[in-house]
């Protein structure tokens, strides 16, 4: 939330996803506390994490797009900017290429507001939902 921004994002909107992710505040699942490791990364938990990232990115799409305006010259510049902004882990070349393929998937890249408002939150979603990002 710190990295995407959360202006206008209701704090209450985090509560349900936190429960689904097994991270309900002050409410561990039992007296043993929260589990370690793989319990946090079940298929359902990862979808919840990714969907939470989607909700955040959607909520902040205009701010993200505005902030990324300086990187609108190419899909690659936009990917580089988003990776830099979101302090991503060292993504592999293969993952970088997937992000670039997504950003480049337009008929013609113009760097228009419409393209930035689609690709910027999309990239934020993909980066925040990546396996590497969970271990930052």
């Amino acid at each position, binding site marked *: 939330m710190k990295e995407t921004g959360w202006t206008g994002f209701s704090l209450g909107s985090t509560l349900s996803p936190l429960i689904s992710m097994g991270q309900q505040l002050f409410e561990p699942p039992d007296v043993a506390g929260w589990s*370690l490791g793989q319990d946090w*990364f079940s*298929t359902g938990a990862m979808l919840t994490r990714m969907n939470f990232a989607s909700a955040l990115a959607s909520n902040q799409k205009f701010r993200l797009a505005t902030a990324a305006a300086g990187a609108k010259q190419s899909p690659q510049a936009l990917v580089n900017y988003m990776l830099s902004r979101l302090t991503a882990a060292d993504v592999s070349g293969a993952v970088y290429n997937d992000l670039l393929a*997504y950003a480049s998937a337009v008929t013609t890249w113009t760097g228009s507001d419409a393209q930035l408002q689609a690709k910027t*939150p*999309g990239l934020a979603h*993909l980066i925040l939902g990546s396996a590497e990002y969970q*271990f930052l």
Partner: protein
Amino acid sequence: MITRREFFKGGIAAFTVGFAAPEFLSDLARAQGSSSRNLVVLDLTGGNDGLSLLVPYTDPFYVSRRPTLAIPAGTVLQVGTDSSGKALGLHPRLTGLKEIFNQGRLAIIQRAGYQNSSRSHFSGTDIWSTANPPNTQGSGWMGRYLSTLKAPLDPLAAWTATGDTPHALQASGVAVAAVPSVAGYAFNSPNTGNELALERTAAANIASHVPIDQPHVAFVGASVQAAMATIDRVAAVGKYKPSVVYPNNGFGLALQAIAGAMATGIGTKVFFLQTGGFDTHASQDTTGANGAYVKLMGTLNDGLMAFFDDLKNTGLLGDTLLLSFSEFGRRITENGSKGTDHGAASPMLAIGGLVRGGQLYGTAASLNPDPSNPTLENNGADVHFETDFRSVYAKVIDNWLGGDSVAVLGGNFKKAGLDFV
């Protein structure tokens, strides 16, 4: 102090997950699910008071040891006598289970447990999950069974209604679909239409890269891959229209989703779900209209009855076996807070269209507190086990799932006469 990264990574490296590429999933689901049989394991979390579920209402020490919690003999739902001649009855709120029992589709295995029963929720759960009391940090028994199926394993071969992956299902090479909510098991996007489709493709591609030198990242990537590969089939489950109305609570809705998964034919072999609140140390109230234990029995009864009726109506009951367990039973003598503390053995329930039910397996304990009473332990405080729970698992693995219990359980726990399925 543990760091966030260490917290997340803890325990992940011990497990790897492998499963089939999406294009093979339909074939796999058909092949692995070809027997159509499925197993539903129900965890009654907290330690269920077996003596209030299956009531030894004629035992001369029952009322004296439970002066405020004893259920009046006249109200229990009588289910006959066990092989020792002891009359028993179900909790009065279990009218649905009594009906299933009368139809011969509910078997009750009395005094299931193990030697030196743990009174710890965590150790107890680990022991029942791993089926390996000496080493409770290893893989789960259901996971080990799944790992014996022909690889690659369909990522929907196992379905848990819990948000995390329960220990019983954890095993190397086994992906588990954790579906606490069918509606929530979806890929959302900040975009719509073609842009959403592009994002989904990108997410699947990103997850497909497995860094072999980073097992924790590989594990999470595999989890995402499994999720992405199963979203559409789980979404189909959400369209299921049950033939009955399920209770509108977490347990009821989880059962409805499981019935939907079965009806949709997505190929799941084993399901896992929980219902909690059984840690009744205080104000257990087994008889009041709003009694804590009465409510627990109501939740259990109404959910299972709806599930049973739904499967019966849809012709799926014969393919289904539901097996319940709890990490331990509770102390025989009630405590000063009108509750019961952690105990030892307790009954297991088996429900299904091919269950040899309508009967009680094993014998009830004598509640005589004499320390020499062989049916009790801890100086007459707790119910001593009669049937090793692994014998129940062995029967399910061998006779229901068509597996090899010796291989899955690491020993021969087969027990003669335990023919509930």
